[in-house]
């Protein structure tokens, strides 16, 4: 399962990662946000029947460490 995170501002560096199945139906992966701000995580998955699934999750207000 592919992961991609984009900032809300265009032109900024996206980050990419992968999620792996850790239990039936459960996937885990990690992404390192490169900058504080609003991010959107995009999940790209391919279902067993070949169809693709796209979902996005808002991650607002990421703060600096």
């Amino acid at each position, binding site marked *: 399962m592919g992961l991609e995170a984009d900032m809300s501002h265009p032109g900024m560096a996206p980050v990419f990662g992968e999620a792996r199945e850790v239990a039936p139906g459960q996937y885990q992966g990690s992404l390192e946000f490169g900058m*504080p701000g609003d991010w959107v995580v995009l999940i790209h998955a391919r279902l067993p029947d070949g169809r693709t699934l796209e979902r996005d999750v808002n991650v607002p207000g990421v703060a600096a460490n």
Partner: protein
Amino acid sequence: MSNPTQNPSIAAEPPPFDLMQVPGLRRLFHWRHLRTVLQIPLLIVSVAMILDGLLGPSLAPKNLATTLSWVHFRGALVLVLLCAGNFFCLACPFMLVRNVARRFFRPRWNWPQKLRNKWLSVGLFALILFCYEEFNLWSSPWWTAWLIVGYFLAVLVVDGLFKHASFCKFVCPIGQFNFVASTMSPLEVKVRDLDVCEACGTKDCIRGRRAPGSELVVIQRGCELALFQPLKVGNMDCTFCLDCVHACPHDNIGILSRLPASELMVDPRRSGIGRFSQRKDLAALAIVFSFGALLNAFGMVSPVYALESWLAGILHVDSKAPVLGVLFALFLILEPAVLLGLAAWLTQIWGGSRRALVPLAVRYTYGLVPLGFGMWLAHYSFHFLTGLYTVVPVTQSAAARLGWNLFGAPRWGWLGIPMRFVQPLEVGFLVLGLAGSLLVIHQLAESDCAERPLRAFTPWAAVSVVLWLAAMWMMFQPMDMRGTFLAG
């Protein structure tokens, strides 16, 4: 009026470079359809941006409207202004639509006398900066698309009702930005030989060229912005439309080189404008341009959120608009009033200037334009250069939605020039801006207070340095782009 090339005191100076004398370019710039040919691709791109903004992905980095507007257009605009001149107004797609519309609807009225100044456009310029923050335009393809649609409609309404280039001269906020920024450009549409103009009996550059035998039929319009070439000074209000070039029967207008910002150092009566020192509205535009540059960049660094949270606590509000309203009032009204008022007062009592306080502030405000331009350059070129190649995957993706495969899958990993290379360039732009401001202020002080120029120079130089330090501080703050108010 004398021909500068025949003046013995400056005879040793080399003649200015004329872009229109470059082989190949001469015919190109004299081609009547050049502007239309430049406008058509930009119109097509504008339509694509509107469609993608309204119908395409809602995520800004994946959409043509947001990517091209907030990364590529703004960056290319300031870099072209820095390196050449106001060529974006030349290629303005809004004017193409207007020109087509005017084939069917002739405007009947002249622009109202009371609005023949920059106050309306200053307000609109500030309003766009406000809306950019309030509606997070950078993150909203939908709002960005409607902004472009609104622009087309505004052009059609204003120039559909009012004659000449009323929209460009009195309304267009992008145009006002370009006019002020182009005072820093190295090229200017200008008369080659003033003696030729003195001998000219037709003044076609302003009246337009008439059909032989019929004074009422204009076959080539003159300047729609009321800039009479022999008395035109600098780039203010010039859209580089080249109507004057095409109208001049003597081929006496070129695109000449000059010292950037030199037009800010002098204060002659300018055709279609008057004296800068007597134009409070133009000074207000210069203030919004210069202080707005800092405010716009401040909106994208972490400390702004701490300030917004603090202000929201004081105001007991949890919505963005009132907090932004206070921030804009602080940075675009109160801060300039205090800094410029103080500097003007010091120039009066210390430098011995005989001007009243407000005219003094108006005169020196133009000295901040180079610094403001340096900030816009640093900010916009950062997004442009670090996101330079993002146009490729976004275009690929937009084409894929139409069923066109452009060179395989979108290359979302394509970005631009690494930040470590761009940051020194940003610092360079800011240093250049400060140097330009100090130079302009010095020239103004020399002509204003010939006996004690240093005393007139110092307060304004101090204001420039304070603003420059603020800009440098901002440049090294962590970027933080949020649309979510008071989050985290």
